[in-house]
């Protein structure tokens, strides 16, 4: 393993800017690492070596010409296959988009290019971002570098596995119910879900439009903050984008790195501090609370009584929106078409195409959503779930009148073995128990590594008020300064 692949994004950018290495060398080192380990990890669905080296050469040329470089210039990044990348295959982990090459870039991908980062390729994910393990990817699961027999989390498990396997120092994920934070937690990496509307959804293949939030993944809190800053901010092409500047997450991460949380008040969510979580996870969480106290934080317990209903509300709202969004996969404008023999009707071809193109979890969610939205059931299911969403938002608002941020374990259990939860879909849903409330509320949340349970990583989740993303970075960076980063065994 090259030294360059173990460095942080901050270190790589400094080496490139100082001329101590070139962006091409950095990129080649990561491509070599991918070639050496990805047959075992399977973090990537597509590696764009040619595009990456061309982007790296462009950075080196700009430096040679004396042009100013941004704070992430020359740093490789792995992009979850949910974002449209011009001319580069984009599958969303689904057979229905196999071979599709988008004719345009997502806003986030445009901003990554503008920042001088080097896109290595597209990472594996549960199909349409529906899942918590990558086992629902149509292209097979990714594996956790901590233990290759276990899941790397999901849906963005390809991105988290790439980070933990040192195949990339930065990655992009998308978080609808925990798909950035939960993979971060189980791989010992950092994953941040920005405030909803703080990062653009333009060019993000839609799953649940009122919840989908793209965001940064990294091995350190400061690297995540720098990536957050590079991709965040208002986008006129996304009608739900918030027309305000990105909170100063980089300054907050630097401030937090001093390890001083004096004056910061944190709330432990009563409902998430016992039931439903593994004892080993709770033991690490309790130690983490002690650490945060030693760093100067004041810690109180706060009840958020409706968080208990977040999981059922989410599994009505998200499938409802998905059943509507995925109607666009009709075998007409892009992607797969099956059964068009000249005799079958459009509707028959559509049904055969969707049957062949979608995997079982996507079909389940489309049908659940169709059920929850159908007349006669709408009020009892979708309508009621939207009311519960209001109550969860009120719980957050009331809590943030008393504390600066809320904390919980990120996920109830450490990385589970591949195959352990696929036969009972609801068991898979429980992986998102602690992350979902934040999505329903629309606020930011981050997972930062806080310890090991039986040799497997545990994450601390920090939840902050909407557009106060900087607060969670400060807390996460302070914790990181105290407990350090976590390195998996050599692959």
């Amino acid at each position, binding site marked *: 393993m090259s030294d360059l692949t173990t460095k942080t994004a901050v270190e790589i950018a400094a080496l490139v800017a100082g001329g101590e290495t070139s962006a091409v060398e950095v990129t080649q080192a990561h491509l070599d690492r991918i070639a050496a380990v990805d047959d075992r990890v399977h973090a990537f669905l597509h590696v764009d070596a040619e595009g990456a080296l061309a982007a790296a050469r462009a950075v080196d040329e700009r430096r040679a010409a004396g042009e100013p470089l941004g704070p992430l210039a020359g740093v490789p990044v792995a992009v979850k296959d949910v974002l449209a990348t011009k001319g580069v295959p984009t599958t969303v982990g689904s057979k229905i988009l196999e071979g*599709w*090459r988008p*004719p*345009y870039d997502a806003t986030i991908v445009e901003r990554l290019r503008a920042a001088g980062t080097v896109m290595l390729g597209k990472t594996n994910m549960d199909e349409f971002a529906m899942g918590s393990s990558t086992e629902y990817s149509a292209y097979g699961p990714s594996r956790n570098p901590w233990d290759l027999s276990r899941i790397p989390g999901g849906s963005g498990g390809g991105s988290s596995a790439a980070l933990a396997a040192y195949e990339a120092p930065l990655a992009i994920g998308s978080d609808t119910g925990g798909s950035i934070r939960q993979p971060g937690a189980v791989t010992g990496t950092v994953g941040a879900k920005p405030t*909803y*509307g703080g990062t653009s959804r333009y060019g993000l293949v839609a799953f649940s439009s*009122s919840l989908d939030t793209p965001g940064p993944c990294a091995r350190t809190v400061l690297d995540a903050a720098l990536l957050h800053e590079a991709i965040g901010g208002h986008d006129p092409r996304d*009608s*739900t984008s*918030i027309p305000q500047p990105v909170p100063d997450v980089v300054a907050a991460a630097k401030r937090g790195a001093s390890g001083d949380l004096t004056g910061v008040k944190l709330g432990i969510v009563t409902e998430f501090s016992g039931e439903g979580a593994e004892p080993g996870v709770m033991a690490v969480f309790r130690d983490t609370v002690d650490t945060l106290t030693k760093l100067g934080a004041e810690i109180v317990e706060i009840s958020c009584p409706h968080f208990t*209903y977040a999981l*059922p*509300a989410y*599994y*009505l709202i998200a499938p409802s929106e998905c*059943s509507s969004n995925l109607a666009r996969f*009709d075998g*007409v*404008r*892009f992607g*797969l*078409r099956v059964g*068009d023999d000249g*005799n*079958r*009707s*459009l*509707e*028959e*071809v*559509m*049904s*055969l195409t*969707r*049957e062949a193109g979608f995997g*079982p979890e996507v*079909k*389940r969610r489309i*049908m*659940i959503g*169709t*059920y929850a939205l*159908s007349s006669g059931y709408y009020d009892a*299911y979708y*309508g*009621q*779930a*939207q*009311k*519960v*969403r*209001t*109550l969860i*938002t009120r719980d957050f608002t009331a809590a943030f009148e008393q504390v600066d941020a809320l904390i919980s374990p990120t996920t109830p259990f450490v990385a589970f073995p591949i195959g352990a939860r696929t036969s*009972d*879909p*609801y068991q898979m*849903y429980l992986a998102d128990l602690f992350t979902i409330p934040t999505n*329903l509320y*629309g606020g930011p949340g981050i997972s930062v590594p806080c310890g090991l349970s039986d040799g497997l990583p545990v994450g601390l989740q920090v939840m902050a008020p909407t557009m106060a993303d900087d607060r969670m970075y400060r807390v996460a960076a302070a914790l990181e300064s105290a407990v350090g980063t976590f390195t998996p065994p050599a692959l």
Partner: protein
Amino acid sequence: MAAISREEVAHLARLSRLAVTEEELDTFAGQLDVILQAVAQVGTVAAADIPPTSHSVPLTNVLREDVETPCLTPEEALSGAPDVEEQRFRVPRILNEDLAS
């Protein structure tokens, strides 16, 4: 009592334009029943007078500046289509649906 029957799942599959197999229907009927029984918990929350939230960002009628911006060429727009004819998406027969059934 089951929340949903095999026949209802078959109906949902038709509404969802999914040509599911008989075997899938057997599997999905049990799984959807478990999921629906679990999510039905939302019904136990007293929320009669609570307004619904569809979206966390309270924005309405968002418009951008009315200026020309580059857009896709016809070739680019059609580049991912399964079937194309004369710069158009070519679709299977949509008229006389009745004759097919």
